[in-house]
């Protein structure tokens, strides 16, 4: 039985000068036979999560179990074996090798795994036929439509009959007819013995999924304002945290600062009584891009996005917000 179990997964890395945490204490549990949808906009961590599931990126904390195998700590030959036999990947741009025919693209992972050429050719032929391309096996990717390229990519991902199949934005380069057949194929592949994980920013796949994981939760629902009192030096929220509240300073002073890759701090702005901050994260469903800390004894009120809009009026202009109100 191939299950997928993600526990307390956190990924943090330095990009440019700053520390980014696209995945924070994520939990996923999917039995085999399920199609799991990773839903969220660009930058929310879908590709990061897929990279972790593929054994390409090591998480900062947490664990990933595929069946009874812990993959987050794999190294060396065990990791190579997992990438070859434990997971199949359908990349967003298909990423077929242009110099190889459709059949050879499917054979390639088997060549790398040491499978004999005759056996690889036979297996590739079976898979190409399974995805309905038996008459196009000798075509190069440049001679195939987007939908056919996707099917070759799916066939390649199934070469070792992996217990985990990952698909990154499978509808990105397809017209609506190709989308239909592609999604149908993915749905069929989520059969007993395999978990299929699909990352997408569009919601049209939701009806096909057995489980939907929203990586960028929406915080638009109404909620009661929260009063927060901070002592000097006390941190309100950290860079990378997810929160639903926009804060208004009632009294005191709040320092907004970013933590650099070398763990030094860079002050962005000070907020005083009557000023607000922290609307972009809840509004866009993104993690906090900076940290907030009280400079003096401070009292704040935290509002939900809808409540904040209603009380303080007008649509929040994101451009102006980015310039003047970070985090």
């Amino acid at each position, binding site marked *: 039985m191939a299950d997928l179990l993600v526990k307390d997964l956190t990924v943090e890395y330095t990009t440019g000068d700053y520390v980014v945490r696209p995945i924070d204490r994520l939990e996923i549990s999917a039995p085999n036979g399920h199609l799991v949808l990773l839903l969220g906009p660009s930058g929310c961590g879908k590709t990061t999560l897929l990279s972790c599931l593929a054994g390409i990126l090591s998480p900062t904390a947490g664990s990933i179990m595929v069946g009874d195998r812990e993959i987050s700590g794999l190294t060396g030959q065990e990791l190579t074996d997992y990438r070859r036999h434990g997971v199949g990947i359908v990349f967003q741009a298909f*990423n077929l090798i242009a110099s*190889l025919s459709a059949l050879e693209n499917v054979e390639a992972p088997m060549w790398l795994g040491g499978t004999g050429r005759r056996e690889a050719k036979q297996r590739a032929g079976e898979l190409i036929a399974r995805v309905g391309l038996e008459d196009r096996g000798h075509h190069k990717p440049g001679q195939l439509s987007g939908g056919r390229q996707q099917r070759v990519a799916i066939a390649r991902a199934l070469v070792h009959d992996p217990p985990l199949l990952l698909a990154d934005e499978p509808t990105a380069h397809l017209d609506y007819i190709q989308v239909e057949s592609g999604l149908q194929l993915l749905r069929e592949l989520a059969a007993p013995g395999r978990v299929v994980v699909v990352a997408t920013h569009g919601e049209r796949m939701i009806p096909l999924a057995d489980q939907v994981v929203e990586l960028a939760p929406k915080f638009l629902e109404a909620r009661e304002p929260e009063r927060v009192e901070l002592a000097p030096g006390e941190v309100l929220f950290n860079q990378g945290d997810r929160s639903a509240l926009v804060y208004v300073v009632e009294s005191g002073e709040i320092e907004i600062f970013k933590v650099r890759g070398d763990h030094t701090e860079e002050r962005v702005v000070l907020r005083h009584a009557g000023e607000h901050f922290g609307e972009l994260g809840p509004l866009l469903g993104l993690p906090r891009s900076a940290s907030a800390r009280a400079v003096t004894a401070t009292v704040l009120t935290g509002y939900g996005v809808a409540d904040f809009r209603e009380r303080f009026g007008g649509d929040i202009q994101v451009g102006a917000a980015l310039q003047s109100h970070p985090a």
Partner: protein
Amino acid sequence: MWLISLRDLVYRRRRFVIAIIGTAAVFAMALVLAGMAAGFRVEAERTQNGIGADAWVVPSGVPGPWTNFRTMPASLAAAVAAEPGVRAAAPLIHLRQSVHEGSKLIDVNVFGHRIGGLGEPAAAQGRVERHPGQVLVDSKLGVHVGDTVVIGRWRFTVTGVVHGMTATSGIPTVWMPLQDAQTMGFGGQPLTTAIITKGVPKRLPPGLTLVSNAAALDDGLRPLQSGIQSISSSKTFLWVIAAIIIGAVVYLSTLERVRDFAVLKAVGASSRDLFLGLAAQSVVIALVAAALAVVLAQLMAPLFPLTIAIPWSAYAALPVVALVVGTLASLVGLRKAVTVDPALAFGAN
């Protein structure tokens, strides 16, 4: 992985064909240079063999007959001939002169010998000279039987032509009677620069030194050693250039295939797999270029005025050189390939 790389070679064949042709030209030039370096010895051997001596006798203190400008009495040949081990001995004069061809001067090696005696080569056309005022010349001089040549300030009639008897970088030889050479070089005095023998003398009259054929050859090549070494060094530079050509093309190809490498790594290719793939491409380019170079070298050799004698060892070494060059060239793209982050495969195009 090697199959994936070979498919890529075919897919991007235009640039790889250009690289193969460029590398083949470089390898061919290296072969020609090897032939040029060997040619100095080959021409010297050919000329020396044409003289047919078993040994050479020169004044004491002189390293050999080709770089010697000291003279000795020609009559010493009789004394040498009387020594045990010698069946025959004769004087042989070696001079450097110039032939006037209109306003042009052509350097020649002049050999003065006893008419009908030792040191007389066989004529390929016409006959050997029989009287003063007659010469036998190498075909490189570009004259024919019956022509008149002016050597120094003397006029001679060409009675015969030999082929391939040049020395010291393609300088043609001229054979003339001993007296004519003594007139030209010593004002008519009965002197000689060397005595050649049939049989090897076991002892010599005082004041004379025995020089073997091998030592005579080395004597003739000694002034050319720095030139020969420079040619050999140039050969090594050419191999480096070949590696640079292949390395540049493979590196450019690697840059274009970064996403391919990311995908291959994501599906389980190791860094070793990627290196072997790059090495396979580079080695194939180098080996095909080496094969083409063998043909090109044959076409290029006649274009040079020197003797080009490409030794078999150069041909045998070429595939080995190609293997080494190809492998080293693949290292240029190796770092780029192995450091590719497989997560790149998840990016959009």
